[in-house]
């Protein structure tokens, strides 16, 4: 027989509460945050997980008709957190996936933002030297 103390019972109660929430309230997502530990559950494909970096918006810019269909894909690269924009890849620059398209600064530390896909820098969504909030479009890449 296992004897549970109050803390163990608390942990089990919390786990049970989560399960009941999932089942009874039909939640597709549950985000649990405790100290430095965070858990995100979803029944879907997880693409709306707030713990993941901001989604890269992909948009069909134009569709020509009739066939053959020509598709131009624009990909927005956004700020993953609030930061000051140090530099942006020049408009017209051709970049490969993984290549830096923006440099951001938080206090005295800089970080580089990589292009998620191959493409050409089509436009800027922020100005160098300015504060970019989370989700601010930094550059748009044309594939």
């Amino acid at each position, binding site marked *: 027989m296992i004897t549970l*103390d*109050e*803390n163990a019972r*608390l942990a089990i*109660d919390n786990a*049970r*509460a989560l399960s*009941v*929430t999932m089942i009874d309230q039909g939640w597709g*997502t*549950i*985000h649990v*945050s*405790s*100290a*430095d*530990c*965070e858990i995100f559950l979803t029944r879907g494909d997880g693409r709306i997980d*707030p*713990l993941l970096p*901001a989604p890269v918006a992909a948009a069909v810019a134009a569709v020509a008709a009739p066939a053959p269909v020509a598709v131009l894909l624009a990909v927005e690269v956004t700020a*993953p*957190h*609030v*930061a*000051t924009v140090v530099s942006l890849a020049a408009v017209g620059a051709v970049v490969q996936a993984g290549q830096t398209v923006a440099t951001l600064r*938080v*206090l005295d*530390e800089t970080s580089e933002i990589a292009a998620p896909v191959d493409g050409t820098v089509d436009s800027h969504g922020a100005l160098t030297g300015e*504060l970019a*909030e*989370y*989700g601010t479009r930094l550059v748009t890449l044309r594939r």
Partner: protein
Amino acid sequence: MALRRLFVANRGEIALRIVRAAQALNIETVVAVSEADKDSAAARLADRSVVLGPASAAKSYLDPRLVVHAARETGCDGLHPGYGFLSERAILPTLCAQNGIAFVGPEPDVIDSLGDKIRARGMARAAGVPLVPGCDGVATAADARREGDRLGYPVLLKAAAGGGGRGMVIAHNGDDAEAGFHRASAEAVAAFGDGTLFMERFVPQARHVEVQLMGDGKGNVIHFGERDCSVQRRYQKLIEEAPCAAMPDHLRKQLHASAVALAASVNYRNAGTCEFLFDVKRQEFYFIEVNARIQVEHPVSEMIAGFDLVQEQLRIAGGAGLKLTQDQVRLSGHAIECRINAEDTARDFMPSPGRITRWSPPSGEGIRLDSHMSEGAMIPPFYDSMIGKLIVHAATRDAAIDKLDAALAEFHVEGIATTIGLHREIINHPDFRANRIHTRWLEQVLLPARKELAA
């Protein structure tokens, strides 16, 4: 020099409360928000809001570098941390100081010292503040057994860096103490990154009493009376009142003097709370800890003092001395606060996030509601479930309870589950009316009876 532009590094009702206090002093405000709080009431009321990061608190409200960077780049000369989140992390005032921003709170070294419960006990001892009989360092399971045997069971094993009941275990005998040592230490490492433990004699049926303090860092510390926060569930306060009607005057004076002495010993700056256990049976009080920030329950002290503590925080952070002397603090009447949480009490207090479809709060003389909610507002699932605090003030405790009962009856919220109904049950219980409560009363008396009725 008075603050000119304030960065509010928090969310919910306290962010709104701080913005309003700043506006009353003609201070501009910039509110930090996560993606989930972009349309919050505080963001709408402030002069500007800045989206720090995604909904995840770890990537927004809990990242001190993002917070201070946003404050600096928006030209803020002051930063208010509110409560929770980074409010008691010394890294925040440290970064503020490095970036020319006045932190609305104590110095980083004071936060560090008081945040370490073993060091805080040492400081309290040095200031002559009574402590629960215990020991400061428990390094091994064998130590736990030996100290438990010496103190007499039951004992509490507590995390030095802890709070909110995490890393805390009750041991009723030597075997419990050894097993509890491992569990409390592991829990403390997981929650706080520090497994250091200390031990105290467990005081059964104690009341939680705390003193509201304010210091200006210029050698002046005053108090605004005490609060009784004994209605708790899992170490979380649900109802707070001021004053503590169960405490006799001679003990109350000693309590206030102890709290002020401790704060004065570190030349405390800004708002703080000194927490005590009150052993009603023995008529003794013991130091628990100092919370180096404004607390959720500060409004009950404001109501009996007729004084805005958050505005005073901002004045002091701007370099001013205390506005009042102790003799000028006049405490009158009785105030009670209920924390209104979006929780389903019938389902083990399960959080109830969602959209509020009806929000009809009470109003009237002596009734105050601190809330960021409104009809149509969305409660995100990412943060704590408190949606507001209902506070009443009346001439006596009985009159305050009657007023609170009427206010709760008038308070209608739909679309989510709330704790409003539970609060009415608590305050109308004969034990609450007769003031025969303690920190375990809710869990040992009312909630089991409630469960039995529902079965």
